[in-house]
């Protein structure tokens, strides 16, 4: 069964302490918000970085997506703070 790649940016990356990881693929109808909750339950930096989803934004396969979007058969989910541009 294919894995899902998760990438982290900015302070989410720093607080979690890694920039990328592979996780077991969640059910296709589970959302980015569900994924965030699962990861936050690990505690430590995950809990700290992900406890308040209103501070987070996401992209699915390199496209911005609201947190309630189902992950479906995506290959990569990115979690990060709101972008701050140039």
């Amino acid at each position, binding site marked *: 069964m294919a894995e899902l790649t998760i990438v982290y940016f900015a302070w989410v990356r720093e607080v979690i302490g890694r920039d990328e990881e592979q996780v077991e693929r969640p059910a296709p109808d589970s959302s980015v918000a569900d994924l965030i909750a699962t990861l936050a339950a690990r505690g430590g930096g995950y809990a700290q970085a992900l406890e308040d989803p209103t501070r987070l934004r996401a*992209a699915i396969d*390199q496209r911005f997506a609201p947190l309630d979007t189902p992950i479906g058969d995506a290959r990569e989910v990115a979690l990060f703070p709101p*972008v*701050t541009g140039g």
Partner: protein
Amino acid sequence: MKRIAIQTADFDVAAELAALEALGGGGVASFTGIVRGEEGGLIALELEHYPAMTQAQVDRIVEEALARWPLLGVSVIHRFGRLEPGARIVFVGTASRHRAAALESCAFLIDWMKSDAPFWKKEHFGDGATQWVEARAEDEAKAQGWRS
């Protein structure tokens, strides 16, 4: 002409503008963003981006600008990495036969680059402190304005 570059190196604004001027359009608009120097003790900005996403996203918004305005050329450059005060961060240049098209598309693209491009900025201060810059609500609103 469509030119998109996401790079660490500085860029030559004169060369970018010369390429746009050479398209024969009559009007070239540009915006250059620079690291401000005056904030208390800021010694550098560190720009992080999402490489797999940035180029494709910028390409998409440039295509949108090309569809919305009669443009002869667009050039978008965005740097990442560590940038000191006074350094250029971002450049948008547009060329058109129509002055308003060049000006409006330039504003549209820089608003997008400043609000929706997947970049994050971390401030480094002289005393060793660092701080991630928070997204500004007004930037999100500005980019939203182009959609209405």
